[in-house]
């Protein structure tokens, strides 16, 4: 049997039909005439769009903009501040690579876990929570804290292992998880200037939540939403489906990523997520407090809760917006990275200044690594 991954690549990446799809997109665009704004909602979609140059294929009235698809970008600085302190006190901080260089609060020194490690702090970078469990088991005489960032996709690794009691007693979880439907609701209801005509819903978040989680967008806001895969052809198809809906005067929810996403999602993962986490109003860096948008460990799991173990408390006022940084506006689709005066000047992938340049899902980082900087008006 041929490798399914190669078959998907052949079908979705190297498929000459892309040019025909673009032609139909242009036909629809010329009939619709009005300006159409479509937001992607996942850093990996933004990567696909930027890396494959899909924006350059769009007609003038079709605009693809990046939305809040980067969890590291919105993770509050006070978590980093607390973890830096713990790492210097001898607690081993375990983090995904994406958050290693994430800046702490304003004026902090060291300013990231990377700098803390350079100063002798204990920091371990891992690929997954399972790796963190292994580190904690291999070093049983130390205390370890896992910086658990991410949207719904990174939650089941933590919830499944906690639920089945597979987390060792010396590993504490700092839950910085943020949820995607609440921020989408916030964006649609509260943010002026991002009036959308279409949404590319995040593919892998939808694998967990189910495509049904997005029903509220067409229903409450009249905006067509397509659950989309990550190959360039997936994105082009989704754009085409949105334009078709607009032309025919419908607002609907469609699932283009049926090979991975079910309407009801992953029930096994959702069960342990709901058993382990509780949902609270939470602060998003650069954005503010969003109703019911954060996940904390339930009291049943406080034995492994870093907030309880180390008394980590949210400050009354946040001081993690870095002077001059436009990350908050970039995340909400109000500004392009190239419209930030710091972009590729003091803020680069090698030496990120703001959170959107840190993670590989950050819009600034994606643009920095994939766009020729001389191109204007992208």
């Amino acid at each position, binding site marked *: 049997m041929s490798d399914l991954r190669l078959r998907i690549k052949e079908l979705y990446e190297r498929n000459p*039909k892309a040019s*025909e799809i673009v*032609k139909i997109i242009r036909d629809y665009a010329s009939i619709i005439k009005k300006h159409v704004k479509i937001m992607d909602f996942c850093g990996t979609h933004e990567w696909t769009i930027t890396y494959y140059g899909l924006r350059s294929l769009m007609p003038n009235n079709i605009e693809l903009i990046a939305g809040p698809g980067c969890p590291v970008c919105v993770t509050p600085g006070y978590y980093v501040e607390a973890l830096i302190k713990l790492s210097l006190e001898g607690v081993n901080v375990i983090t995904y690579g994406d958050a290693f260089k994430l800046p702490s609060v304003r004026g902090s020194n060291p300013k990231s876990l990377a700098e803390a490690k350079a100063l002798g702090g204990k920091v371990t970078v891992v690929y*997954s*929570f399972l790796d963190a469990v292994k580190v904690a088991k291999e070093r049983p005489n130390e205390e370890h804290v896992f910086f658990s960032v991410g949207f719904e996709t990174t939650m*089941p690794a933590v919830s499944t292992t906690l639920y089945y009691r597979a987390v060792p007693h010396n590993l504490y979880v700092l839950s910085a998880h943020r949820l995607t439907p609440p921020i989408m609701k916030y964006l649609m209801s509260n943010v002026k200037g991002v009036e959308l005509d279409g949404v590319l819903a995040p593919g892998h978040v939808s694998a967990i939540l189910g495509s049904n989680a997005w029903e509220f967008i067409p229903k409450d806001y009249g905006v067509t939403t397509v659950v989309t895969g990550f190959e360039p052809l997936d994105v082009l198809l989704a754009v085409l489906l949105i334009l078709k809906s607009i032309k025919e005067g419908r607002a609907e929810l469609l699932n283009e990523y049926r090979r991975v996403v079910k309407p009801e999602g992953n029930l096994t993962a959702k069960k342990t997520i709901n058993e382990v986490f509780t949902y609270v109003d939470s602060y998003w860096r650069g954005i503010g407090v969003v109703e019911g948008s954060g996940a904390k460990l339930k009291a049943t799991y406080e034995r492994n809760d870093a907030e309880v173990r180390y008394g980590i408390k949210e400050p009354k006022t946040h001081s993690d917006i870095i002077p001059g940084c436009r990350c908050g506006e970039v995340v909400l689709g109000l500004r392009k990275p190239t419209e930030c005066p710091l972009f590729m000047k003091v803020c680069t992938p090698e030496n990120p200044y703001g959170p959107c340049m840190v993670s590989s899902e950050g819009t600034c980082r994606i643009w920095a690594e994939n766009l020729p900087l001389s191109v204007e008006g992208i």
Partner: protein
Amino acid sequence: MCLGVPAKVLRVWSVGELRYAEVDLGGLSKEVILALDEPVNEGDYVIVHAGMGISKIKEEEVEETLKIWEDLYNQGLHIEQ
């Protein structure tokens, strides 16, 4: 971190109720946890996200999705202006 990658399942096993798999991530062999509704066997493909198998890829749907395009293409030839 937040990147989902299609991976081939090489081996599956359980510890208590927790299901594990060894997967091939583009040539790299990696141990992951499985949180899936359906059973997974050697040779299946799953989406691995930060060390966790979150979805089994439905082989029969792979080409099915492109049929959406086929339909749109056929209609697209006759878009009413």
